[in-house]
């Protein structure tokens, strides 16, 4: 409760008072002098973040400031609780990419049911029964284009017209309001804070000092946060891939096999999780959307969570002369948007074709939580491939940076890679260490050394990639089978691998500098690269490009390495490297659908993970 005397525009005369003609005291009639009182305007929010409005001081103290200890929170109400938003028009035609995002619970002026009501941040105006006739009350909101206020009625909710005063009954009887964010922060122009003021104007009368009184509450919109690999999978995603876009109902046989194998691994390791495998002609499930969440305080210490799905800011060439947004990304609206789930897209359609690959979310990972010196990232920190002149969509990066809690983003050079994604060379795993996680990083030098060692043992003639084929899966495949010696003698592979070893060192130096991670916390993952169009690509299946299911299970691409003594050299190496950290490797053959098309298991999968126990509002960005 805050009465702002500095806003009181009244003249208070010393000795001013009024003589009430008659007041009855125990039956006698005596003249009584009463000084006019100062009104006490009290707008409350969930300042102490326990999910409810408290009527004691807990939700009143410092309500006009905001920090890690206190301050009210609201959600951008961009989900679709009543499932009213469509991806097609009345004639069944697809909505355009511009139209598609323009529907969610914040795009109308109604509260769409009980679920939607849960997404409103509560505000309470404490009753002032003695409010004199003629008193007015009105909300004043400093960022009124960012939020919408609703007033609770006996029959539901009504949107408040901020240009008009509230009914006097709100003041005299008290009232409940709900505040929704109309969007997440998109750039640095809005810091996510909103100041909501209850402004009460008291007219000239005898009982209260006339003037204008404000009670101010400061709130912050919940940031959208992305997941890191140390959180277990709740829902996994993998595309069911048609063989050809012209025949969308005919699934690629390799896709069927891959989805089935992934499902088997998931159900074995995490039987309570889900697998969603939408049919979409884009097998790069990691790339066309990113999962995240926004949360605000719920009751009993819980977080009230809204899932958020980012559509990738990819522009694809649809013909020689036309370009448009990556179509598979529509899924964030057409499939994922719904109850407690939002879709978000942010794109600059003028961004250059050359760097579009960087906008795929294989190039958007989140380093698990850590501290470095006085700085701390309790909710992790985003890492992307980006260098000057070869960078992801700046409007999208601006949006994620504006969330504040997982930035500034760490950027590394991925321009030397054909695909250009951070997940091609590194991954993060949970570990029982002070940091709580370790880094897996590609090491072509180690791969070459392992193979050279085998040549030294007389195993140069042992085959790799046995039974695997290069080529499109429509037929006319050719054998990928080679030998250790032949691989070591492949000029393009050796050239690209030598470059990769040095470039990964450069990436690693940045990650070490930005996180403080030490060599003891790094596992080297051996595989060689090849040269494609002057850039680099994993020649052996890139086993660092893996799918972390939980603290114990990793789904990793089958390296199809040389089998010596009955064991695949590269499988054995990885299994032994991660075993001390409690991990079991679940091998998955991704050669046909992913490896030979320049991706691996991580590229082909995605996940919604468990919400971190750390509440964003309790930490300082």
């Amino acid at each position, binding site marked *: 409760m805050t009465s702002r005397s500095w806003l009181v525009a009244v003249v208070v005369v010393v000795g001013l008072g009024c003589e009430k003609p008659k007041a009855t005291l125990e039956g006698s009639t005596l003249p009584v002098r009463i000084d006019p009182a100062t009104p006490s305007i009290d707008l409350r929010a969930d300042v102490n973040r326990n999910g409810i409005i408290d009527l004691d001081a807990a939700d009143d103290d410092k309500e006009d400031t905001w920090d890690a200890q206190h301050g009210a929170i609201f959600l951008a109400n961009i989900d679709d609780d009543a499932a009213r938003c469509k991806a097609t028009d009345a004639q069944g035609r697809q909505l355009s990419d511009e139209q598609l995002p323009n529907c969610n619970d914040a795009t109308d002026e109604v509260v769409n049911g009980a679920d939607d009501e849960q997404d409103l941040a509560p505000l309470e105006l404490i009753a002032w029964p003695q409010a004199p006739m003629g008193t007015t009350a009105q909300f004043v909101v400093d960022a009124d284009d960012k939020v919408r206020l609703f007033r609770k009625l006996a029959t539901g909710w009504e949107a408040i017209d901020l240009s008009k005063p509230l009914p006097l009954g709100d003041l005299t009887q008290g009232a409940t309001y709900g505040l929704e964010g109309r969007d997440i922060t998109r750039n640095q122009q809005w810091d996510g804070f909103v100041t909501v003021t209850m402004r009460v104007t008291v007219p000239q009368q005898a009982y209260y000092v006339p003037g204008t009184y404000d009670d101010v509450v400061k709130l912050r919109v919940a940031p959208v946060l992305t997941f890191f690999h140390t959180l277990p999978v709740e829902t996994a995603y993998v595309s069911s891939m048609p063989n*050809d876009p012209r025949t969308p109902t005919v699934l690629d046989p390799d896709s069927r096999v891959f989805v089935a194998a992934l499902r088997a691994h998931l159900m074995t390791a995490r039987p309570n999780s889900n697998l969603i495998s939408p049919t979409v*002609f884009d*097998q*790069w499930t990691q*790339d066309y959307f990113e999962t995240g969440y926004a949360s605000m305080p719920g009751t009993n210490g819980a977080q009230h969570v809204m899932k958020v799905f980012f559509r990738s800011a990819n522009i694809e*060439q*649809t*013909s*020689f002369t036309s370009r448009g947004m990556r179509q598979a990304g529509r899924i964030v609206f057409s499939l994922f948007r719904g109850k407690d789930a939002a879709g978000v897209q942010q794109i600059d359609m003028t961004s250059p*074709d*050359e760097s*579009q*690959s960087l906008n*795929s979310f*294989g190039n958007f990972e989140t380093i698990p939580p850590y501290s470095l010196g006085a700085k701390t990232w309790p909710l992790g920190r985003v890492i992307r491939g980006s*260098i*000057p002149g070869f960078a992801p969509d700046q409007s999208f990066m601006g949006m994620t940076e504006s969330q504040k809690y997982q930035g500034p983003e760490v950027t590394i*050079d991925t321009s030397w*890679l*054909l*695909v*250009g*994604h951070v997940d091609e060379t590194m991954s993060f795993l949970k570990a029982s260490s002070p940091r709580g996680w370790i880094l897996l990083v590609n090491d072509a030098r180690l791969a*070459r050394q392992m193979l050279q060692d085998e040549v030294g043992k007389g195993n140069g003639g042992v085959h790799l990639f046995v039974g695997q*084929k*290069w*080529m*499109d899966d*429509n*037929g*006319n495949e*050719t*054998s*990928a089978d080679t030998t250790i010696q032949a691989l*070591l*003698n*492949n*000029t*393009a592979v*050796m*050239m690209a*691998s*030598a*470059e990769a070893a*040095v*470039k990964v*060192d*450069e990436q690693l130096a940045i990650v070490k500098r930005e996180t403080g991670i030490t060599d003891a916390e790094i596992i080297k993952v051996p595989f060689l690269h*090849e*040269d*494609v*169009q*002057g*850039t680099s*690509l994993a020649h052996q299946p890139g086993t660092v490009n893996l799918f972390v299911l939980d603290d114990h299970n990793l789904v990793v691409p089958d390296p199809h390495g040389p089998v010596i003594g009955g064991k695949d050299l590269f499988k054995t190496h990885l299994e032994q490297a991660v075993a001390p950290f409690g991990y079991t490797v679940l091998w998955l053959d991704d050669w046909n659908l992913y490896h*030979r*098309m*320049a*991706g691996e298991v991580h*590229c082909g999968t995605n996940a919604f993970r468990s919400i971190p126990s750390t509440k964003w509002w309790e930490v300082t960005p």
Partner: protein
Amino acid sequence: MKMLTLTMVVTAQVALAGGALEVKLAPADAAKIEKQVALAKKAQPAAFEQVAKIQRDLTVIDAKKRGRFAPLTTLLNSVPEATWALVEAIVSTAAVAPEAPRTAVIAWQTGLLESLGDRRVLATEPVLMAALEAATEPEVIRSAADGLGRLGTDGAATALIAAASKREGAAREAVFAGMGSCRRTAVAGFLARQLALASTDSERLALVKGLSRVGNEWALETSGGTPAKNEIPAIRQLAASALVKLYAESQGHLRQAASDAVLVINAPETKVLLAQLRAKDPAAIDTLIAKTH
């Protein structure tokens, strides 16, 4: 086989939209190659069919790609005995895929050129030279230079140096970046001299790329790394000297690129070369010395 001798393209856009490279061969070369293609078609029809199949599937393959381009080089490399099938595809004037996205066309053209070069068939030298001459898109120019360079012949080295000298701007940089696959002293010396003369960072980066590849230690250790094994020490020394100098005299991303290239080349004299320039920036020089094996 389609007609081999054609007029040069009017504009890059026209050529690219059709997907044909529009190479122009000398009549004598055209006749020889036409004969080779005809013979190969009889002897290895499967290879021609496989290459044609990839071409037919180009749009779908492109749609499935992850990243900038579909890795067609790997795909085409895997087709055995396909040298002349690749040649036929390179010299063909038929539209590759008229409505295909640019990325598909670029992937196709670069894949053909790199895969052909990777086979190191000397008789294909005129085709690769003509392709380098005809290419207009930087990616394709780079791949043509790369493909030609993989032959490693004197003729390839001479043609690459001539192409780099004749081209300008982005096209010239593309030749610089691609010609590093020609691991010959002449090429290393040329790139080193150009680095000393370069006036823009963009040009310097392309030259660093070329030098990094020409002196790539691991590549040079393979049997196909260079046909001139006796030139290896000189190649590495020339490349390392130029890059060490750039490292000592530059900053930022250019210095980083130079550092990476020096480490990839890993020339025996690197530490000595660095020590000689230590006065220019002792801390930076010591950092790179510490990384040098």
